[in-house]
């Protein structure tokens, strides 16, 4: 429990670093760190398969795509970078205060959290069984989303080639 709370605090800190980092590359690295910490939490909560997906896709693939996109954009001048840094510091200085106030307020609320009774899970319930028997419509949805994404990327790359 203590380790979980420490990991949660680290996750929130990395999220804060991600959004307030002055350079976008650091933001992407922070995002990968958030995913890595979330993966450790998933292992702590007995969700290793989702953890492996999170680590390989969200901490590996998505930052790589972001970095590729950043490398294709134009670099700002040093003056513009300094100006953005100052502006960002001004904008995000208030965020930690908002988070502390929200955390204190939420901890004082004492919400009633018994919203669902714990249901005993059947003995043979694992991810494979659930995916193929209970949530099989999700698989079709995933396939459609992936194919739609591939189609969209192909169309966008075609546009790039025509413009080039």
């Amino acid at each position, binding site marked *: 429990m203590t380790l979980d709370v420490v990991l949660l605090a680290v996750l929130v800190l990395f999220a804060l670093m991600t959004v307030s980092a002055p350079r976008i590359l650091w933001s992407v690295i922070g995002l990968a760190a958030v995913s890595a910490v979330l993966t450790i939490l998933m292992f702590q909560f007995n969700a290793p398969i989702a953890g492996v997906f999170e680590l390989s896709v969200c901490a590996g693939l998505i930052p790589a795509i972001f970095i590729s996109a950043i490398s294709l954009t134009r670099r700002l001048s040093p003056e513009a970078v300094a100006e953005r840094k100052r502006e960002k510091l001004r904008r995000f200085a208030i965020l930690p205060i908002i988070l502390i106030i929200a955390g204190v307020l939420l901890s004082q609320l004492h919400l009633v959290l018994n919203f669902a009774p*714990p249901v005993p899970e059947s003995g043979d319930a694992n991810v494979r069984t659930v*995916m193929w028997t209970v949530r099989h419509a999700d698989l079709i949805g995933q396939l459609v989303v*992936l194919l739609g994404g591939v189609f969209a990327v192909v169309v966008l790359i075609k546009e790039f080639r025509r413009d080039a």
Partner: protein
Amino acid sequence: MTPEAAPAFSADTVRLISIFGIGVVLVLITGLYSIITTRNLLRVLIGIEILAKSVTLLLIVVGYAANQIALAQALVITLIIIEVALMVVAIGVVLCVHRTTGSIDAAVLRELKG
């Protein structure tokens, strides 16, 4: 006939959900604040990613607390796949915007017509 009383969460589970619920809300606020305050389109996408992380964490914690971790994992895998497809397409669109306008500032998009 009175309905059978539903078994409640244990005190430890309620404490776990309370602590992680606060964490999830804090991460959610961080992502929302980033989306609201920034005009850089790539940073907006990073904010959306942070929001997705908070939802992923909530699913896992609730699945663990309700003893439905297999179902939670199936939902998280679906979420991750949708997230990666969304990100790839959105980054492609941002690159197209950059190619067209020379900038990834959301304010530039106000000038687009038709």
